[in-house]
């Protein structure tokens, strides 16, 4: 991926609420970076939730967050996560 100047690619951290998922597969199918995959495990209702296959590929497009009908998956910007872990605050 070539970026011009100071442009950096965004990285996303994916949060999946496994028990809310109903296994529809929309997020897996439409993720542009193939980050997610349906798992074989069962959640509390008997559905197969997705699992994160390639977290590093996630580019924070937030498509999975918008498409999920169950509000069960969302993405946060990874810089924010790393900075919080380091204890810094954003300006």
């Amino acid at each position: 991926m070539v970026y011009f100047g100071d442009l950096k690619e965004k990285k996303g951290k994916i949060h999946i609420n496994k028990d809310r998922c109903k296994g529809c597969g929309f997020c897996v199918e439409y993720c542009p970076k193939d980050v997610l995959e349906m798992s074989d495990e069962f959640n509390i209702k008997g559905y197969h939730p997705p699992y994160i296959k390639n977290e590093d590929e996630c580019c924070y497009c937030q498509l999975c967050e918008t498409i999920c009908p169950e509000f069960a998956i969302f993405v946060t910007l990874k810089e924010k996560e790393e900075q919080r872990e380091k204890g810094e605050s954003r300006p």
Partner: protein
Amino acid sequence: MKKEDQLEEKNPMEDLLRMDRIPHIWCPGCGIGTVVTSFTEALKKSKLDLDKVVVVSGIGCTGRVAGYVKLDSFHTTHGRAVPFATGLKLANPELNVVVFSGDGDIAGIGGNHFIHAARRNMDITIICVNNFNYAMTGGQVAATTPLGANASTAPYGNFEFPFSLPYLADAAGATYIARWTALHLRRVTKSIQEALSKRGFSFIEVITPCVTLYARRNRLGDGLNLLKYYYDNSEIHHGADTRTLDISYQGKLVVGKFVDKEKPTFLDAMNKHLGKVLGDKYVLYGRINDDRD
């Protein structure tokens, strides 16, 4: 699921959803949840005063949306969401009223109210989730079921001609008409944003998969297959002639923003006309200019 995830971060949509009522009642693979997410995105991006946004729903699967959004919301009787919204808007013109209901509710039993509200150019936004049947009651044939499709009250196939909702809205006088499928996420969000800030009757039709009923009865696969089908077979034609927007059974779908015109709303026309005729005796009603944004 890591416990830390739940505590650290909250799904950003949660401040617009009634989390005490989630998980919702919609089937796995149902597109209504996706439309609700697009709607909440549109609300956040539009920077509207959310206290003044009111959601009115009718009866049906889409009618349950009112119960899940954290705004002033009303779950009214079948087909009467549009006149209810009319009453709300006229009584308090500062409210931003959104009718979120299904195709059976708006174009079936509520057909008369729909065309009259469009005729009067009521300043409300209608988001019609079209899944081609009456889903909540078990998948009966609706006014939008394509010719030849199967439904529980048309077990041998539907022989009635369906409505083309954008054509109906255009003929009735709507000033903003758009049609998308549930997968056109960002475009639905943008349409909703435009409709919310537009003065006039806005109508957005979103075609969504109905897994348990329409797809199952017609052997069309599951939610993913149907959603894929709708998206792959849709062509975007902005400004297309609304007379050419029929949907045939498993045929091509024409989507896009078809109508975006200006026309005085009911209150604008009322203020202008009665102000002219009655002069000083008339008491001005509502806001005279559009400074909603």
